[in-house]
């Protein structure tokens, strides 16, 4: 894959297709949470390949870089695919170290991985950490942004709402959170166990600038992110990105058990590859 970012919409869509296929191949070869990664491919591509985030392998020691926190740490396949493709670490690390040997690339991201700012894996931590980072940046008059990707099921953690209150109280407009709103938790549809609907209203009532969109539409995502970056509002920002869990692989798509399903059997592997090639 191409290791440099090319920001035209056509290229971003093409890149999403590449990354989605890569996530599937990584899942086939090494395991991991395929469905949770497939739902946020376009979000990750928009963040890492458009001009939204100022993060690159060359500026990781630059204090003015933006910060990205992968709070839904179980979507590690897509993170590793993107980071290796962007050149944060060599591609061969995925074959050598992902869930192998010293697990330099573990089943959830560790801060020591190049390009990873914060260790995640237990959900509900990332936003609070971002609040601390963003508040420090604000105290020191720094201008960079803090992007945080969370899952919708993650929002059943009380700590998320503690952090939400804190962010709005401190007017942390330097936070742009994204909810990968795929409507499914680890074992069921979210609607079957939590009243977490009307997410946009909930976040607005907590003092956030909340916008909903199709989380697979790169054009919309990019436009919303850029508008949040340019905004003069003092509110923290959140994008409710409506997505399909397991997007692109028919037997994972919108499957309430998709979170724990792999792409393991010959028929599953064949079906997944054909799905991504558009073969019925």
């Amino acid at each position, binding site marked *: 894959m191409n290791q440099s970012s090319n920001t035209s919409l056509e290229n971003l869509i093409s890149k999403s297709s590449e990354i989605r296929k890569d996530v599937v191949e990584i899942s086939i070869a090494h395991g991991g949470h395929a469905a949770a990664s497939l739902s946020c491919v376009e979000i990750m591509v928009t963040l890492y390949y458009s001009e939204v985030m100022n993060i690159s392998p060359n500026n990781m020691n630059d204090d003015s870089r933006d910060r990205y926190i992968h709070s839904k740490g179980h979507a590690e396949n897509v993170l590793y695919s993107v980071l290796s493709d962007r050149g944060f670490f060599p591609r061969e690390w995925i074959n050598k170290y992902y869930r192998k040997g010293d697990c330099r690339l573990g089943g959830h991201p560790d801060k020591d991985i190049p390009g990873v700012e914060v260790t995640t894996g237990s959900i509900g931590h990332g936003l*609070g950490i971002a609040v*601390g*980072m963003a508040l*420090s940046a604000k105290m*020191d008059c720094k201008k960079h942004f803090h992007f945080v990707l969370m899952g919708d099921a993650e929002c059943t953690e009380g700590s998320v709402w*503690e952090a939400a209150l*804190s962010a709005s109280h401190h007017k942390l407009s330097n936070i742009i959170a994204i909810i990968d709103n795929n409507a499914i938790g680890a074992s069921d549809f979210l609607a079957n166990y939590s009243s977490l609907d009307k997410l946009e209203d909930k976040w607005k009532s907590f003092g956030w600038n909340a916008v909903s969109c199709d989380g697979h539409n790169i054009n919309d995502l990019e436009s919303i992110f850029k508008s949040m970056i340019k905004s003069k509002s003092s509110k923290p920002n959140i994008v409710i990105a409506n997505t399909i869990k397991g997007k692109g692989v028919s037997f994972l798509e919108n499957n309430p058990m998709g979170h724990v399903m792999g792409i393991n059997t010959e028929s599953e592997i064949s079906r997944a590859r054909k799905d991504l090639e558009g073969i019925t």
Partner: protein
Amino acid sequence: MLDISETRNLQMRDAFIFKLYEKVKHDKDIIIISNDYGAVSLDKFRNDFPNQYINAGVSEQNIISMAAGMAIAGKKVFVYSIASFIVTRCFEQIKIDICSQQLPVKIIAVGAGYAYSEDGPTHHACEDIAIMRTLDGMQIYSPSNAVMTSNLVDISLDTSMPMYIRMDKGIFSNFKEDINYDLGLDVDSLGNDLCIISTGTIHNVAIDLSRILFENGIKSTVVDIFRLKPLNTKLLSKILEDHTHVVTIEEHTLNGGLGSIVGDHILDNALNCALKRFGIIEGGIYVYGVREEVRKKQGLNALDMSISIVDWLK
């Protein structure tokens, strides 16, 4: 700046925060985050340095994550809370966000043991040592008086590791001037019939016990372990090698506290000491009562312990 004669008569938290106040004058990166918990010293701190004090409300999970984020950003963060709330309610955040990322966040916690005795089990911190010592990389200090507590400010600013400082509530003015803080423990010896080891303010009871035992012809060494982790294993072994009988005294459950730490050390090093542990036994945590009475029910007073020890040493 307060001198020792003023510091010794302060609450431990005030001794610590007033000392920290002096540091903040020259360091804009020092931050105190409180969970809506006050102190006389904190009023002065937040009045004079409002940008370096954050009342984050009663949101302990967020406080620890936020503290981690601020430490990642280069801030020197002190989290200030009642001990029982900040140890257990947000333990996973302490483990993952602070310890696994090896961030130098300092948790200054008030209310060791039964310090909030009348307030009951929700406010007791009788398991905190056991819990916090399981954390990889976490340093644990348990000072026995206000002067010692104020001297932990420099130590806490100098270390790049996470730290938990277990403070009592009340005035504990007895102190020694010649303590070597690098050692992590302090020793006073009248003789080698018995070694009495304590941590925290119950050290004062250990001193009383030593006096009573002396009157009964038993000469003891009194050890105040104010740094429980990392333990000064070398010095502790040297002390224990000179004793055949050891007692530990703690206002903490016997499940995993000071007695367990010393017991582990004796076992790990095959030391030839008999160990007797005084602390809170099963059934002693979910209780209310005036502190001295609650302690007495657990046998944590000098007279009762002396009777038990005299019998033990026969």
